[in-house]
């Protein structure tokens, strides 16, 4: 176990280093579009990381996490529309709104288990989706184009794609380290225990619900942060951000990368979005190839990509 943690630290360092060098490589290769794609990858990596916290460690398969991407994205759109353009304010609003939505929906969803939990999280996300579809002040179904990206200290530094990219990377690294700390803490141990055997946890004196709900709230708030970055990357916000396909894609990213080790979620998001970019160039039927790959990874390595690197467990 200690060895696995050490391996993860090395792999994380290498992965983040590669991300840090990417804009330089993109500049050298004369392909600035790469930085924009990679910013999108980073935003989804944050969301997948947040999902892995509850899915991998808490055993809670949320099929509605796209709702939080939308909540984060609309935080940017709504505040910017009201003249508040500061990134800090956007992030704070997204975190609060995401946490509240998670608290409300989690408190209800967590009274169910298994397939019912999956369906209820999906239902809540659909409710959020249709709420924003009906929000005509923000374009309804069509969404709304942002006049500009968020500002920092009143300056429009994020207009530079590379600054936005590094901001997203800093958020990803920071949130990754936060998740590493959380999963290794007292709280993380209880959360993992409730995934393994909730009755056992009750029999030593824990009430699983409290810990699961807290993790759900943390995850929702983190995913909303991803939504803020996604809105800035696209300069555009629409209900499509919270479409249920998107929720499914987030689950796929986590499974593809390997559930329950945090880094896998980041790798999974990266690979899924790169494949989407590359395969879409090859053929319109790229989801067929992607689906086949996903099946192969899941069949041959229960731990996803991370399992392929680590070799089989136990």
């Amino acid at each position, binding site marked *: 176990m200690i060895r696995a943690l050490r391996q993860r630290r090395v792999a994380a360092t290498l992965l983040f280093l590669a991300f840090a060098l990417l804009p330089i490589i993109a500049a050298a290769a004369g392909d600035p579009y790469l930085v924009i794609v990679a910013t999108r990858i980073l935003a989804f990596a944050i969301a997948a990381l947040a999902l892995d916290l509850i899915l991998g460690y808490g055993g809670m398969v949320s099929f509605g996490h796209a709702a939080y991407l939308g909540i984060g994205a609309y935080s940017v759109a709504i505040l910017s529309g009201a003249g508040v353009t500061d990134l800090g304010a956007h992030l704070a609003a997204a975190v609060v709104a995401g946490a509240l939505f998670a608290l409300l929906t989690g408190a209800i969803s967590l009274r169910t288990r298994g397939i019912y939990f999956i369906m209820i999280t999906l239902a809540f996300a659909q409710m959020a989706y249709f709420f924003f579809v009906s929000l005509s002040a923000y374009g309804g179904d069509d969404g709304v184009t942002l006049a500009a990206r968020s500002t920092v200290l009143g300056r429009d530094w994020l207009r530079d794609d590379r600054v936005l990219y590094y901001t997203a990377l800093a958020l990803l690294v920071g949130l990754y380290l936060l998740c590493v700390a959380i999963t290794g803490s*007292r*709280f993380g141990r209880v959360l993992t225990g409730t995934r393994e055997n909730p*009755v056992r946890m009750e*029999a030593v004196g824990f009430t699983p619900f409290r810990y699961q709900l807290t993790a759900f709230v943390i995850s929702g708030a983190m995913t909303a942060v991803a939504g803020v970055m996604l809105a800035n990357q696209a300069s555009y916000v629409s209900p499509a951000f919270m479409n249920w396909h998107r929720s499914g894609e987030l689950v796929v990213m986590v499974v593809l990368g390997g559930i329950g080790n945090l880094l896998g979620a980041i790798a999974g998001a990266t690979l899924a979005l790169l494949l989407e970019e590359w395969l879409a160039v090859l053929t319109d039927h790229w989801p067929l190839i992607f689906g086949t790959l996903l099946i192969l990874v899941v069949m041959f390595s229960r731990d996803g990509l991370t399992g392929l690197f680590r070799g089989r467990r136990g």
Partner: protein
Amino acid sequence: MSLLSVRGLRKSYGALKVTDDLDLEVAEGELHAIIGPNGAGKSTLIAQLSGQARSDGGSVRFAGAEMMGKPMPARVRAGMSRSFQITSILPAFTVLDNVAVAVQARDGSSFRFLRSVAREARLNEQAMQALAQVGLQDRADLRAGSLSHGEKRALELAIALATRPRLLLLDEPLAGTSGAEAERLVEVMAALKGRVTLVLIEHDMDAVFALADRISVLVYGRIVATGTPDQVRADPKVRAAYLGDG
């Protein structure tokens, strides 16, 4: 003075009365065994006492406080712990962490998010003590799922002990163990006697009669006799209902 006082406890599954107006007194410090034929309602009784299963009525007083309506975690924190007939551990955790998480449950808040729990020496030390009590100290770093059946039974006991109970409800701790494994677990229970109040459900009659201070006989959801092992052995009602006059 009774540590545990059960009055008129009831539970039905449909028309079947599994626990039928049951009274039970367990004195502080005793090892109180509950025996009875299959289907007498022994495991249901443990589930009701521990708060895992809801009771239809009656009273469960522990150390003077009413426990009815309180969920299992609250009862554990009050000092009533249980072990399970079917081993209930955290298979992906190490043996040490299985016990350390039980220590953690009674030692400070677990809403701590940043500090590494693996480095909390106090938790690990107390967990090691509980493991040493059941003879598993050499297995501390193994994955709990990889233990032998007998070792898992011992771990189950160590987890319950780590909650520092005043009353320990043991649901067939010897279930499925072989001769040598069972012997070791009986030794562990003998060592616990007097330090923890024990309610023991067990099918192994040799173990029961060797360990128990008092025995209650449960038949169709009612206690039909309570007494010392000798009294129970001699009780004609018991012989008729359970020991089959053998």
